[in-house]
């Protein structure tokens, strides 16, 4: 009450200062139920600019004094659409405001940035709620899509600076790219993953350089739309065969100068450490033995010769620790936890915009500074600057220009996965008596690594002596010129360019246990790509018939160059310079260029606002295909029928919109440059002469373009004036004539061969249900539920080839005919007809070398997002769900074979007792580890006891296969907008403060403690393998946004 009084006084004071010439009164009501809305800002648009005139009272009533020259009143209320009313001499102006959410569904952005009415679309698309994008930021914008959009599956990056994988509606290509095209303001951008789609078994030098999408500044994003199938993306050409993610960035709304600053601080920590045992320390077979060498006459056991926790019980006996000093052999239960810190990610942004409707600008600058839960690795510094200018030269000619510059530097990227240079991996199986302090002196007086177990480098050496750094400078430009020819014809020219220059080095100091001579490499990569399009639009209405057409021609060109230099031994320790080598550096130079020319066209016919037909056609000519096959045509056709418009008598208050839609599309696809003729490379010098190596891929000079055919149909229903919306889509796509490099028998002289063959079918269902169960003045609740189920089948590969390998780490990931994409095979536990595990006579598992171990793809994915608004408070949370799918955990397996994981305790004490105290022989143990519920081949139950250290279960990879299902509270945001009335006297026009959390709660998972079901070794196609990834993490954030 006091507040209201205060406000009233404030308004009275204010009104005195005005030269009141006219008084306008009126009432602001909610369009849905006609009730009055209190707290609506009534803004005067005067000749001197805008200012607040009044705020509506409890019943929505307002009275405002209007000075001369005021043309319009603007009614604004958070969460509702702002409405502008011309005064036109009126004294009473009553307005109705609409909720924003209902408006969002009306007009959507489609291919080529064309805005269309949602009800006219014949295919499914889904917009993402971007309201919490900046408040609960993720290190990679791709991760924020997870759980929000039906049919989009995200594999998050393994580190904060890594590459994420996104696929829409499953995998269409067996060996090629399956990720959608990113389109920013109508310009496709390269989103090549920076981990080179690494395979698990690749060498230990891999660093993940992140993907370009990670550099997109969330501050600049106005909207994100996902076009799911080839139907939606037919017009972006080949590169959108896997769908498209359209990002529209903000521009000035053409009003007066406005500036805003925002600051976001996010803190990240490990939420779940692996569960490790704390009874047995370093050693082997329960034993620790001193070498008995002359300098150790007492034969004190030296732990440096061990690297696994299979020693005796730790009861405080003297031992020589890994740093060479004597210590007591005692458990260190927190040695893994102590290794990690809380990471912080700070984002600060400044935005300025202004101008008028005809000519305006928006400038934004964002600085990001982040690090990692492991101190010293993945330090990231990023600057984004973006300027967007809109000019109207004449009433018929305008230009929209945008230039974005990104500078991204990462110091000390973490080596990937199971690399022996990845300190993270090693800590998942840290020897149980090691103290972090024993590692701190990682270097001896000669500069050699110390404090390492064999097979286990000193993590501080890895962090401090394997230095790498890279900087990517990225420049994107988008220029869009529009010329209105007449009332229904418009010509647009678009030029989009993307360039980046990356340079960096990776240094491995000499003196390392793994690599005593050290090495170093540097690289300079650059990419220049451009899209040039000329499009003629025609929009007309003839009677009940509306026509929406365009024809265009375009050219896409991309040039890539990669240069690298490498030296394989160092002279001077610590000198990071290529000249620091006693040998000639190895250099490599690679340049590629690709051109696609296209013509395309589309026409949409609408009849009487309820019947729509869409037709598109495109022809591409790609430089990567042989000249007789390089032209490919692909059409699409679709239609939608809005039966609520067509059939009279449907009560709109119940069923506001009902639509049936169906579409069919074909998309062609090409390949990478230079994939037609085999070539040799000179890799090295031997015997004082260079020698040449033929490409190990057998090329096909007659490649044809690949084809994805897809159809979908669905229904969209809106009830109770859009308070409840339901969409269902059924789709089916099949990619044939695939350009695949399939593994062939090496006896052919090659390891892979190019084919035009194979077929993958994907089909599935997507459902979304959204609604506003409560919508009151002070309280509203929105909910969005989505569900998607994708099925896939590898229909055929190549004649005579039944399967091929996509990835391997102990288990193999295959595309196999008759199975879904990405099945896991490997050495499994042999079972009898009843499905019981079989053991050999010695009690160890019987193995089946080529057992089916699972499928890495989820059965279904879904998400539930809720947002609540109470007065000026907003609360939103997102639950992300994945059901089904399997993966092998290399970390678990390593943790198990190393004797570190808590699971290895089973039978250990018992074995110790029976074997070492009772002295039973190995063959006649009456206690120890036993494989329970296992049987001998003759059907009798297993009764053989074993040592847990070699119980054989790690030989059966099926024992390290886990269910990848999860339910996670992915995102939680609470924000508070300071009422504008409070800010009235300040220089602020708006202020918002928010706290957020990501991954705060894993509601459900089936993996062992410390293993995240989402982790993966790669952003490439061969999913289903985890190895050396970080334990599950959560983040907390604080966000402040001020608008001046």
């Amino acid at each position, binding site marked *: 009450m006091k507040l209201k009084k205060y406000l009233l006084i404030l308004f009275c004071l204010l009104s005195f200062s005005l030269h009141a010439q006219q008084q306008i009164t009126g009432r602001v009501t909610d369009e849905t139920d006609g009730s009055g809305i209190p707290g609506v800002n009534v803004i005067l648009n005067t000749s001197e600019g805008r200012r607040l005139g009044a705020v509506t009272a409890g019943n929505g009533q307002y009275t405002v004094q209007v000075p001369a020259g005021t043309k319009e009143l603007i009614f604004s209320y958070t969460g509702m659409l702002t409405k502008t009313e011309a005064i036109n001499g009126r004294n009473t102006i009553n307005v109705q405001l609409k909720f924003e959410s209902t408006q969002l569904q009306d007009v959507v952005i489609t291919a080529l940035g064309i805005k269309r009415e949602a009800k006219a679309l014949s295919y499914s698309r889904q917009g993402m709620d971007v309201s919490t994008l900046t408040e609960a930021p993720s290190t990679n914008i791709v991760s924020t899509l997870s759980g929000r959009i039906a049919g989009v599956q995200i594999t998050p990056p393994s580190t904060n600076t890594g590459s994420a994988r996104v696929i829409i509606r499953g995998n269409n290509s067996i060996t090629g790219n399956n990720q959608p095209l990113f389109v920013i303001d109508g310009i496709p951008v390269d989103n090549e993953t920076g981990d080179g789609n690494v395979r698990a078994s690749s060498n230990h030098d891999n660093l993940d350089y992140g993907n370009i999408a990670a550099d997109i500044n969330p501050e600049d994003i106005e909207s994100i739309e996902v076009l799911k199938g080839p139907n939606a993306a037919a017009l972006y050409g080949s590169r959108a065969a896997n769908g498209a993610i359209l990002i529209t960035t903000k521009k000035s709304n053409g009003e007066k100068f406005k500036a805003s600053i925002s600051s976001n601080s996010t803190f990240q920590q490990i939420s779940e450490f692996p569960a490790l045992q704390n009874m047995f320390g370093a050693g082997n077979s329960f034993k620790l033995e001193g070498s008995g*060498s002359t300098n150790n006459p007492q034969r004190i056991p030296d732990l440096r010769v061990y690297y696994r926790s299979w020693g005796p019980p730790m009861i405080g006996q003297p031992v020589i620790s890994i740093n060479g000093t004597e210590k007591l052999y005692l458990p260190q239960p927190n040695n893994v936890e102590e290794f990690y810190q809380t990471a912080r990610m700070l984002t600060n942004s400044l935005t300025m915009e202004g101008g008028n409707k005809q000519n305006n600008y928006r400038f934004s600058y964002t600085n990001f500074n982040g690090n990692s839960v492991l101190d010293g690795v993945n330090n990231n510094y990023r600057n984004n600057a973006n300027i967007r200018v809109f000019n109207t030269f004449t009433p018929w000619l305008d230009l929209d220009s945008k230039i974005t510059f990104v500078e991204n530097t990462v110091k000390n990227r973490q080596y990937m996965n199971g690399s022996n240079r990845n300190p993270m991996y090693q800590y998942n199986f840290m020897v149980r008596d090691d103290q972090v302090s024993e590692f701190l002196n990682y270097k001896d007086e000669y500069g050699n690594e110390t404090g390492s177990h064999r097979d286990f480098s000193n993590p501080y050496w890895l962090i401090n002596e394997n230095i790498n750094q890279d900087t990517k400078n990225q420049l994107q430009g988008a220029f869009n010129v529009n010329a209105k020819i007449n009332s229904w014809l418009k010509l647009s020219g678009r030029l989009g360019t993307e360039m980046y220059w990356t340079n960096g080095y990776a240094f491995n100091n000499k003196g390392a246990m793994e690599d005593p001579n050290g090495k170093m490499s540097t690289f300079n990569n650059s990419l220049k790509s451009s899209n040039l399009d000329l499009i003629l639009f025609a929009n007309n209405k003839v009677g009940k018939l509306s026509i929406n057409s365009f024809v265009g021609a375009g050219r896409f060109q991309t040039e890539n160059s990669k240069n690298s230099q490498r030296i394989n031994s160092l002279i001077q320790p610590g000198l990071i310079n290529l000249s620091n080598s006693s040998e000639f550096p190895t250099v490599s130079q690679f340049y590629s260029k690709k051109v696609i020319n296209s*013509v395309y066209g589309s026409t949409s016919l609408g009849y009487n606002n309820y019947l729509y037909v869409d037709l598109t056609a495109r022809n591409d000519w790609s430089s990567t295909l042989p000249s007789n096959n390089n032209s490919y045509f692909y059409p699409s056709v679709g239609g939608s029928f809005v039966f609520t418009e067509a059939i009279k008598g449907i009560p709109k208050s119940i069923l506001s919109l009902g639509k049936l839609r169906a579409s069919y599309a074909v998309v062609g696809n090409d390949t990478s440059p230079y994939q037609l003729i085999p*070539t040799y490379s000179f890799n090295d010098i*031997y*015997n004082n002469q260079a020698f040449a190596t033929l490409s190990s891929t057998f090329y096909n000079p007659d490649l044809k373009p690949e084809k994805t055919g897809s159809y979908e149909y669905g229904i969209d229903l809106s009830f109770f004036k859009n308070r409840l919306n339901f969409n269902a889509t059924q789709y089916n796509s099949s990619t044939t004539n695939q350009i695949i490099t399939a593994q062939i028998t090496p006896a*052919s002289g090659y390891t892979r061969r190019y084919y035009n063959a194979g077929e993958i079918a994907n089909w599935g269902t997507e459902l979304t249900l959204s609604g506003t169960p409560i919508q009151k003045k002070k309280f509203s609740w929105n909910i969005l539920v989505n569900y998607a189920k994708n099925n896939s089948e590898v229909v055929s590969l190549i004649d005579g080839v039944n399967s091929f390998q996509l990835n391997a780490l102990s288990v193999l990931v295959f595309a196999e005919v008759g199975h879904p994409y990405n099945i896991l095979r490997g050495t499994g536990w042999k079972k009898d007809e009843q499905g019981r595990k079989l053991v050999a006579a010695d009690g160890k598992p019987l193995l089946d070398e080529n057992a089916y171990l699972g499928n890495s793809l989820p059965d279904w994915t879904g998400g539930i997002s809720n947002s609540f608004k109470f007065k000026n408070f907003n609360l939103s949370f997102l639950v992300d769900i994945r059901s089904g799918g399997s993966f092998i955990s290399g970390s678990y397996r390593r943790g198990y074979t190393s004797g570190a994981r808590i699971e290895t305790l089973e039978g250990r004490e018992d074995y110790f007792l029976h074997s070492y105290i009772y002295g039973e022989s190995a063959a006649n143990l009456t206690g120890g580890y036993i494989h329970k519920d296992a049987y001998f081949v003759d059907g009798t139950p297993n009764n053989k006891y074993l040592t847990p250290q070699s119980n054989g279960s790690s030989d059966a990879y099926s024992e390290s296969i886990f269910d990848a299902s999860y339910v996670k509270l992915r995102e939680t945001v609470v924000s508070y907008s300071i009422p504008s009335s409070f800010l009235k006297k300040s220089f602020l026009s708006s202020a918002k403060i928010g706290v957020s959390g990501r991954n705060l709660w894993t509601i459900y998972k089936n993996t062992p403690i410390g293993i995240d079901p989402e982790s993966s070794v790669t952003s490439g196609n061969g999913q289903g393998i985890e190895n050396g990834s970080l334990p599950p993490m959560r983040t907390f954030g604080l966000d402040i946004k001020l608008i001046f």
Partner: protein
Amino acid sequence: MVLLLTITLVSCKKSLESVNVNPNNPETVSPEFLLNTAVFNTMKLFGGPMRREALSHYSHYVSVGGGQFPRYFTFASTNNGYWQSSYVSCLQPLHQIELNYKDDPAYKNRLIIAKIFEAYIYSNMVAVWGSIPKTNALTGSVSISYDKEEAIYLSLLKDLKEAANAIDLDGDKFTGTSDAVFAGDLLKWKKFANTLRLRLAIRISNASPAEAKKAVEEVMADEQNTINKAAETSRAFWGTTSSNWSYLYEYNIVGASANASSLNVISESLIQHMLPYSDPRLAVYAKPASQGPFKGKYWGQPKATQLPAGVSLPDGNPHSPLGPLDYSQIGDYFTKPDAEYVFLSYEESCFLKAEAALKGWGGTKSAEQFYNEGVTASMSKYNLPKQDIDKYLQQPGIKWNTVVDVSERKQEFEDFLGLTSSAITQANPFRQIVMQTWLAGFYNAMDAWTLIRRTQLLEFPPHFNPDGGEGGTVGYAYTPQRLNYPPVEYQVNNAELNIALPWLGDKDGLKTTLWFALPVKKNPFLPQ
């Protein structure tokens, strides 16, 4: 307007084609850049990781420690790697020479040399796996048929004969550095071809005596065109830059601390065959232990350091607390960065001829003469003094057709468990040839493994800690008789593989005896 654009675009078709010309790599290279590719990759295969974990261990020269192959089991990706290197890295460059220059008479000799080296590679591969793809290999086809082991040997014998006869000693040759084996010397290639033919014929002398005899007699009839002196040894050297360092140097010396648990160290069997005979080569092959309880002594590591099930020794197990560094390490001659890799040596040539002569299949000298020549060649290679060589050759058991007196020193010849002995107690010149071939061939593990399998004459203990259940009910496993086919063949060449599997008796395992080999000789002291 759009029509106009279309026309322009279509007319650009030609220019699109020129965009796709690879500026980075050549489409053809001359044979000068391909022979060494094959030679170097062959060294990297049979002298690389495969030698470290499988061959050197199966040859009983060294002991390796843990891991699948060293524990007489298989490992999918490693085995795939061996198979892939054989065809793609080793054979393919030679095949490219043949494919691209077969119609050009100016390259005649170079084509033959490619063929000879290809025969060498196949002769190793057939000894590793048995039946393998050969006739239709390297074509890039999706499925590649297998050739029977027997047929491969016969075709290699034929190819080598033709190659040796076809070399035109006045014709074209490789320039010096482009031929890392013989620096372009055509006569040496011819001698290599003939001697390799001799090796293969002798290798199949159990399996197909008639074919073997025919080929041996042909070669021996032209003995002057076989490897007859040290300078004709077929070998190549690793290099001094890091990318072509010897694998053993890289693994055992540079990576010594990283690989501390799995170093190649001298085996007990080698010491057992050399020390009691005062073999002067021991000081070249091995170093005394530099640490541990046996410091200063030649002390070899047994296959498995633990005792077999149910066995206990009165003084305990001397090996149980020892690590690899407590044993004799491999001599410096073999661990140099630019060590040699021997394809076929003069000494082996002598011993092959000794075998031929012993069988009465020709030769200008007697078996004994060839035997002595071989031992002398082997020792001279390491610059050992003549008196030491003569002294060695006069020893009982070493001297041709003599036996050694083991009374009071029986244990010196035995392994620590007393299961095997190196003592020649019954006159057996053939066993003497085999033992000397084995000793002379130190660290040429591929050839030694083949020798062991074809003769089954020398005594080596089995592995008491085999992996993957290979020990069966008795808990030990004998030296593998082959490697199994790699999983990649099951995955992508399955139909052809299924035709070949019955040739092995459907048992694609490490224990399956190949056609050329003899069954494992069982150890009489162990449970069968």
